[in-house]
C-alpha cells in the first residue's frame, strides 16, 4: 500500500435549511477544497463521495445525481453509504483508490440535505428498522439513542447531568467554528431544562438536522510532496459492522467501534492510543455518544470517562482534546457532511490552521470516528502530520 495524504479541505456553512440544492452544496465544498490546495478539476483522477439515505432527497440514485457537483464528470466516481458513519467512511473509500496505486489524486466529497424531507427528516428514519418485527411498533430514531443512552448510564452510574456536560462543551466550542449553524452560548441548565424528547434525552442533548457539504483532496506521496510542504497523512483506517439484530447486543459498549479502532491503530503503529493520540473527534450526534465512542476508541477506560471529562482531560488544553471542531452538537449534523467535517478539522488542526479553535502544543496525531446504521457500524481514521 502507498502512503496517502490529505492536501486540501473545504466545506459549506451548515444551516438548518439551505437555499442550495445538494449538487450546489457539493460544488461549493468541492471547489473550496480544490482552491485550498491550488488544484483544478483536471488535476483530479477520481472521485469518492458519500451521502446518507436517498430518502432525504427523494432521488433514489443519489450518487449519480450528485456526481456533477462532486467533480465526477467523466471520471471514475463511486459513492459509499453506511448510514451515519458515511462521512468518515468516505475518506477510507477515497484512501484505497490512492493507496492501491490506481490513482494519484482523489476528491472525497460528502453532502447531506435533510431539510427536503417533510415535515421532518426524523420520519424517514422509520425505514431503517425491520419492516415486520420493528416498524409496526412505530419506532423513531430517538428510541435507539434513548435506549442506548439509558443502558449506558445505568451500567456505569452516569447521570443525565454527566451526559449533558458534553453538549455544553461541544456547543460552546462550536461557536468558534465559522461553519457552525449556532450563534448563542448554552449553559448546563439550558440543556437540562430543554424539552424531554425521549427520556433520558432532552432536546439540547441532540445535534440539529442540517444541510451542508464538506470535501477533502487526497494525493499519493509523490504528488503530495510536490504540492504542499504540510501534507497530513492518513496513518490508519478501520471499519467494522455488527449484526442488525441490535436487541441482541448489549448496548452499553460499542464493540464494533473497538474492532474498527484496533484495525486503524494497528495500521498506524499505535500501541497506546490514549497516550499517543493528541486530538479526538468522536462522533457526537448526541452528547453521550461522544463518551460512549471515547470508550470504544480505547481513549478512555470504560466507566471512568465522566470523571475524566469533569477533570478537564478532554478540554482544549487537556491531555486529549475532544471535538475541537465543536462536533455535530456544535457545528451541525448534515449526516455524511458532518463526519467529513471532522476529517477537515483534523486536517486544519494538524497543520496548525484551525484559527481560534487551534489545539495548543502542535498536535501530531488525531483520530476521527463516525457511527451509523442500526447502532452497528463504526468507521475510524487516524491522521498524522
Amino acid at each position: 500500500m502507498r502512503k496517502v495524504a490529505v492536501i486540501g479541505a473545504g466545506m459549506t456553512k451548515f444551516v438548518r435549511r439551505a437555499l442550495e440544492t445538494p449538487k450546489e452544496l457539493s460544488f461549493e465544498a468541492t471547489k473550496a477544497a480544490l482552491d485550498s490546495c491550488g488544484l483544478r478539476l483536471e488535476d483530479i483522477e477520481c472521485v469518492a463521495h458519500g451521502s446518507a439515505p436517498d430518502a432525504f432527497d427523494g432521488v433514489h440514485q443519489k450518487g449519480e445525481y450528485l456526481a456533477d457537483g462532486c467533480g465526477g464528470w467523466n471520471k471514475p466516481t463511486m459513492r459509499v453509504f453506511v448510514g451515519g458513519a458515511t462521512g468518515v467512511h468516505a475518506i477510507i473509500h477515497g484512501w484505497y483508490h490512492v493507496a492501491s496505486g490506481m490513482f494519484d489524486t482523489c476528491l472525497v466529497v460528502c453532502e447531506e440535505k435533510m431539510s427536503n424531507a417533510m415535515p421532518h427528516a426524523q420520519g424517514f428514519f422509520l425505514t431503517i428498522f425491520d419492516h415486520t418485527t420493528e416498524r409496526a411498533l412505530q419506532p423513531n430514531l430517538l428510541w435507539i439513542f434513548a435506549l442506548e443512552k439509558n443502558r449506558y448510564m445505568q451500567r456505569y452510574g452516569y447521570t443525565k447531568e454527566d451526559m449533558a456536560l458534553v453538549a455544553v462543551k461541544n456547543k460552546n466550542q462550536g461557536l468558534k467554528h465559522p461553519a457552525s449553524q449556532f450563534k448563542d452560548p448554552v449553559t448546563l441548565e439550558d440543556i437540562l431544562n430543554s424539552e424531554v424528547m425521549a427520556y433520558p434525552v432532552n432536546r439540547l442533548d441532540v445535534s440539529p438536522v442540517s444541510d451542508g457539504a464538506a470535501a477533502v483532496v487526497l494525493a499519493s506521496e509523490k504528488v503530495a510532496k510536490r504540492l504542499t510542504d504540510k501534507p497530513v497523512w492518513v496513518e490508519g483506517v478501520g471499519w467494522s459492522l455488527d449484526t442488525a439484530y441490535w436487541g441482541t447486543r448489549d448496548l452499553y459498549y460499542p464493540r464494533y467501534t473497538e474492532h474498527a479502532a484496533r484495525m486503524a491503530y494497528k495500521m498506524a503503529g499505535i500501541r497506546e492510543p490514549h497516550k499517543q493520540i493528541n486530538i479526538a473527534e468522536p462522533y457526537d450526534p448526541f452528547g453521550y455518544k461522544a463518551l460512549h465512542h471515547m470508550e470504544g476508541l480505547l481513549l478512555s477506560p470504560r466507566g471512568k470517562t465522566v470523571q475524566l471529562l469533569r477533570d478537564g482531560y478532554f478540554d482544549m488544553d487537556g491531555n486529549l482534546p475532544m471535538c475541537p471542531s465543536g462536533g455535530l452538537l456544535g457545528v451541525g449534523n448534515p449526516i455524511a457532511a458532518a463526519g467529513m467535517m471532522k476529517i477537515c478539522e483534523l486536517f486544519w488542526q494538524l497543520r496548525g490552521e484551525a484559527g481560534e479553535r487551534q489545539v495548543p502544543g502542535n498536535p501530531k496525531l488525531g483520530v476521527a470516528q463516525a457511527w451509523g446504521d442500526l447502532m452497528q457500524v463504526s468507521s475510524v481514521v487516524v491522521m498524522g502530520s
Partner: protein
Amino acid sequence: MSNRQYIQGGIGLSEDDIQQGKVFFAEDSLNCRYAWDMGVAIERYLRELKNGRIIAKSCNECRRIMVPPRMFCELCFRPSDDWVFVQDTGVVNTFSICYVNWDASRIKPGETPHLPAVIEIDGASKGMGIMHRLGEVDPKDIKIGMRVKAVWKPAEERTGAITDIKYFKPYQEV
C-alpha cells in the same frame, strides 16, 4: 492562517422565506406501496404470535436460542437447527419514555408517552432481546432489570403481527 476562506456557500433560509413564498419550491409525495414477503423464519414467528406464543430457533454450534428466529446463524454462518418455544416473559434491558411520535410530532397533552424497551426473552440465550413496548405501568416505576410479561390481544383480534403482543407489563413470579 485560518481555514475561514475555505468555507463557502450554505445560504440559510428562514421560516419567513418559506412561509411568505420568498423562495420557490416544489412539493411532491409518493404513494407507492410495498408488499413484503415474510421469509421462512419470520413467517413461522408471526404464525406462532397469532397462536399466542413466541417461537425461537436454535443453533447447535454456538448453542444460542435465537429470537426472532432466523434460518441461519449469523455468527456461525450455517443453517440454524431446531424450532424452540420460549417464554412470553423477560427482563427489561433498557427503556425510554418518549414524548415524540415516529414522525417527530409531539404526543398530545395528557397522552401516555411511548414506552419502548429492549426485553430479554426468558428461554432465549442470555442477552437475546427484542424491541417492544411497555404498558400498565407508571413510567416512573420502570426500572432496568424489571421482570415483564407479554399482554396479548384477544385470540380473535390477532393477525400474525408483532403487535399481537399489545405490550409487556410488570410481572411478579408467584
